[in-house]
């Protein structure tokens, strides 16, 4: 599955947080696929399949990106987890709100950095 608009925007914002790893992670993001998505009610998890021909990263996670998401009163927090050098999972976490009825693939949002 391809990335949805929210995932694309969040990943771009997250990569800008790590200038030293930017080129490595950009190469991993080329031709990246989404293998699964799960809305937990407290946010979502998006499991990613990166380009593993690329060089591994030394980062373990990248955070510090938030977004106002339609249907939520407070910003969502986003974290990209990197496992054994490769992009693994994008997490979106709501604050004090239930996300069960939000379709994250068809939602309006605004990135906060």
């Amino acid at each position, binding site marked *: 599955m391809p990335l949805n608009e929210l995932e694309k925007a969040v990943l771009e914002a997250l990569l800008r947080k790590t200038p030293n790893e930017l080129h490595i992670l950009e190469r991993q993001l080329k031709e990246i696929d989404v293998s699964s998505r799960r809305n937990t009610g407290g*946010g979502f998890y998006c499991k990613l399949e990166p380009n593993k021909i690329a060089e591994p990263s030394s980062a373990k996670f990248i955070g510090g990106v938030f977004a106002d998401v339609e249907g939520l009163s407070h910003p969502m927090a986003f974290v990209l987890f990197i496992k054994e050098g490769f992009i693994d999972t994008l997490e979106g*976490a709501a*604050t004090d709100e*239930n996300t069960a009825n939000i379709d994250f693939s068809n939602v309006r949002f605004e990135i906060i950095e």
Partner: protein
Amino acid sequence: MADAITSSDFYNLTILQAGKDIGDLLSHPGEIPGAIASVAPGLGPIAELPQAVSGALGVIRAIGTVGAGATDDLSNPNADTTVPQLPDQNKLNHIFGNPDHNLDPVVQQFGGQSAAYNAIEQAAINGLGSGTGTYTTVVEVGGANVTVTGAYVNGVPRIGTAFIP
């Protein structure tokens, strides 16, 4: 003499270190000698605990008071629901159900997910104080460095997610 929560004040209790999950205890008040406990929809637990039991639970801190005489109207729309309460089960599953978050040692130390969540949130409150907007910070909880990120709600830092990298 009991550590009483009177009918005119609601307190939200946070266990900083506990041998048992307060959610479990409050759902089985019969297991607490001399305790009266109930859960008000939307308002969290209302509890009256004997002092000895409070001590056994660990350090219980009253975070705030809301709504004089609120027991007369448990659906009080003016109640400040942003003061920390027992966390939502979806939130607990989201944070603690992901093994990549590496939080099992914290859950074990505090005796349950609710207690661990409250300990993390209390550590964030202690470390950050009041504010606005969003935050990402690292707090020490039970000897572990936990990365926490979220947003301030009515000036209080609330948890979006937490993990040990």
